[in-house]
């Protein structure tokens, strides 16, 4: 019995170590490369930890490229998208759960159906439409496209959360003299907070990560977001690996920080509907 326990522990920790390597080692290598002076980057055998760590790659990235402009654009577009998506989907989810009207469930089903369309399947008409509306090459076009693509998931997620909040709580607040807006603000939204946070993470990750819409809809350099901007850097000249890995670290940092800060709420959201990608 004891020997079986020891074997089990060895298997668990062996597997755990392998998983740790798979998940984290590539990222460790990115950070390590970003801190190496160029001589060390191309050294054989490669060193795991830089012998002479330097921030030179980061300095070049910030001083010699438009990285900060791309970064600013990504942040503006992502946060605007999160705000807009939360407002629109919370309103919609509230309408779907607190009012009864003919065709309500059909509408909800139809909204879910739109979730099945990958961006690549509608990017062409989308592009033509955006040009017709005169908003091609604007941040607004990006915000609207990301909001639209996040809506079905966020609406369904929030609908599930709103459904689980007892109506009586809201009615009690109304009886106590609060108007509807205050009842929602002080009773419903706090209870739905985990759902709102999960929706925010999902939206942020999608908007921050998107490549296709940004590639098609944005043409001027000063409006490009990180994925397209950094891909341009990568293609521009002989690849400066130290600088590219520094860019990787800087792009990843906000995504991981945002994710870690609110991670525990995400598991609930994931349980409720899955994440696309």
């Amino acid at each position, binding site marked *: 019995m004891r020997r079986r326990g020891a074997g089990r*522990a060895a298997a*668990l*920790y062996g*597997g*755990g170590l392998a*998983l740790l390597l798979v*998940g*984290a080692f*590539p990222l460790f*290598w990115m950070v390590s*490369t970003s801190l190496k002076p160029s001589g060390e*980057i*191309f050294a*054989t055998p490669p060193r795991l930890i830089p012998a002479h760590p330097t921030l030179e790659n980061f300095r070049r990235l910030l001083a010699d490229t438009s990285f900060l402009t791309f970064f600013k654009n990504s942040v503006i577009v992502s946060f605007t998208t999160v705000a807009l998506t939360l*407002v*629109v989907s919370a*309103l*919609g989810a509230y*309408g779907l759960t*607190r009012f*009864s*009207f003919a065709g*309500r469930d059909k509408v909800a089903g139809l*909204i879910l159906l*739109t979730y*099945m369309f990958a*961006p*690549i399947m509608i990017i*062409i*008409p*989308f*592009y*033509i*439409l955006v*040009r017709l509306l005169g908003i091609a090459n604007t941040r607004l076009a990006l915000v609207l*496209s990301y909001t*639209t693509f996040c809506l*079905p998931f966020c609406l369904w997620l929030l609908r599930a959360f709103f459904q689980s909040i007892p109506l009586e709580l809201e009615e009690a607040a109304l009886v106590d003299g609060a108007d509807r807006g205050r009842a929602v603000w002080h009773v419903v939204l706090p209870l739905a907070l985990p759902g709102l946070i999960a929706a925010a993470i999902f939206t942020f990750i999608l908007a921050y*990560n998107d*490549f*296709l819409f940004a590639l*098609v809809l944005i043409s001027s350099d000063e409006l490009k977001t*990180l*994925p397209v901007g950094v*891909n341009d850097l*990568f*293609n521009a000249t002989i690849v400066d*690996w130290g600088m*590219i*890995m520094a860019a*990787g670290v800087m*792009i*990843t940092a906000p*995504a*991981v920080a945002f994710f870690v800060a609110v*991670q525990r709420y995400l598991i609930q959201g994931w*349980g409720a509907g*899955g*994440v696309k*990608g």
Partner: protein
Amino acid sequence: MRKNALAGWLLLAPALALLGGLVLFPIIYNAWLSLHDKHAFLTVQTFVGLRHYVYFAHDEEFWNSFYYGVVYAGSTMALQLVLGIPAALLLNEAFRGRNLLRGVVLFPYVIPTIVAVMLWKWLLNDSYGLVNHLLVTAGVVRVPLAWLGKDYIMWSLVLTSVWQFFPFVVVTYLARLQTIPPELYEAATVDGATAWRRFMHVTLPQTRNVLFVIVLLRSIWMFTKFDTVWLMAGEGGVSRYIRTLPVYAYARSFTYLQAGMGAALAVIMFVLLLVATAVYFRVFRQEEALA
């Protein structure tokens, strides 16, 4: 619950306007566009009926893209399961550091695609990449492999994609594993079932449905994946050895500027997915009837 239809519709209006205007309308417009010859920028268009569809039926490039798409979606799907399910089973066991590991496993899924692709291109770099260094040092290969050359580019793409997306399988499968009643395992253990038999007779039947959904969603998403594939090789050079349908549709629309043909490819992709999904549901139902 109030019977106030107007208020309900008003609250839904912004969402419906966005979805209707920016998803449903484009879908319909796309189908209509696929029957026309149209330049991506210019407004002129001429009706050509089903000519684009007939063209693609005989287009070697289309069939290559279809083939690459099936290879890519199929192999990445299978490998995500091979890696993801054991990882989920592991993370369902109790051991020190489990919660930390659960967080770490999600990293590849959370980092932006552009970073994942750049990082793997660096790891797989033919002269200075760590992968080649390890392979040569360990004596697995005598000379460094050209991972990003035409012979191995598909392997590299599959590797990168599996790394990036297997955490989805882990999280989804793990969520279901946690809801299996422990009594089922206790009963099986009392009956003397080995770990393998417990997996086959308790875990697998309990998780059938979630596996069904995982395979369906991941296959669709891998088949329609654009960014990872496109970033891996861009448009020139070796990109034609990994040119899946989404990339081909993009190239037709925005490189050759043939919006009508691009639209037709989008419709074909949609129909293929619809048919595959229908077949998949049918097969799965039949199996359930047999079981």
